[in-house]
């Protein structure tokens, strides 16, 4: 027996809602990637501020992550490889949430490098965590629709 929420998700309106969220997420990740792609050194500096990653992995992460955001963002917008993109974006969001939480717990004070590498961007904080949780839940919702509500036979 399906709940009314599941029925809605399976309907045409649900499909449209999911498509709109998917394009929105895609555009957001494309936007978030551009400044980091153009300023890899500044992005590496942002990552190093978290003091979580072993130094040998710093440059490699700063080189690959923004492109992963861009490619996954494009995949969501054009609706190709979208499930893989959701898994990657969901995993990245989960890591961001843990990293920001860990930085807050350790009392580190720095800008998070979430959407740009601008040092005027807001610092790590509760709002950033909630923002990322919201995005993560969007990914979960869409994956839930794909896997549970409308599984392909």
């Amino acid at each position, binding site marked *: 027996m399906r709940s009314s929420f599941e029925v809605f998700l399976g309907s045409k309106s649900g499909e449209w809602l999911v498509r709109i969220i998917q394009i929105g997420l895609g555009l957001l990740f494309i936007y978030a990637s551009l400044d980091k792609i153009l300023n890899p050194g500044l992005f590496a500096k942002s990552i*190093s*501020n978290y003091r979580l990653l072993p130094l040998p992995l710093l440059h490699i992460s700063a080189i690959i992550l923004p492109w992963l955001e861009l490619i996954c963002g494009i995949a969501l917008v054009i609706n190709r*490889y979208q499930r*893989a993109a959701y898994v990657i974006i969901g995993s990245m969001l989960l890591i961001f949430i843990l990293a920001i939480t860990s930085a807050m717990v350790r009392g580190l004070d720095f800008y998070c490098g979430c959407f740009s590498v601008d040092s005027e961007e807001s610092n790590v904080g509760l709002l950033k965590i909630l923002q990322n949780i919201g995005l993560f839940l969007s990914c979960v919702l869409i994956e839930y629709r794909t896997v549970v509500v409308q599984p392909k036979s």
Partner: protein
Amino acid sequence: MNQMNKLIKDILTLIILSTLLGITAQAVLPNGIGLKTEITMVGDDSTAVAVPAVSINPNGNGDAASNISLENAHAAYENNAALFFDARSPEDFSSGHINQAINLPVHAFMDSLPYLENLNLSRHIITYCDGEDCNASIDLAADLKMMGFSNVNFFFGGWQEWRDAGYPIESGP
């Protein structure tokens, strides 16, 4: 099972594509970085800490601020030869700072532009924050360098090292 295999294959495809594009881009971008993280040692010899070179010089333009030791920072203070910029928050600054230092929180750098624009770009500036647990002094020094100041040092030992040495301090805004 087929769907799971396809998903894993797709994930790997996106990761490999991003890796290839990312590495290629570094060769094309004027400010591209290498795959290997370069390390710079900062702090006094006895308390040197390894930090990524990009922390000090994110644009890799070869004109980065450098570290200044406690001894040299104190000499500059005694000779009234440098301006000390405290990169911490106003609250931290109020609770105690290097005597005659100016509070210039790194996260509100743009707010300080009207003040900075009136300074001579060749003026010797020393930035500091709490000490080894913070990077704000390095960030502020990098911002000042980008703004055109030519003689900028960050004092990585910071407030803690200065206070522990018993050098002049004051509190209040």
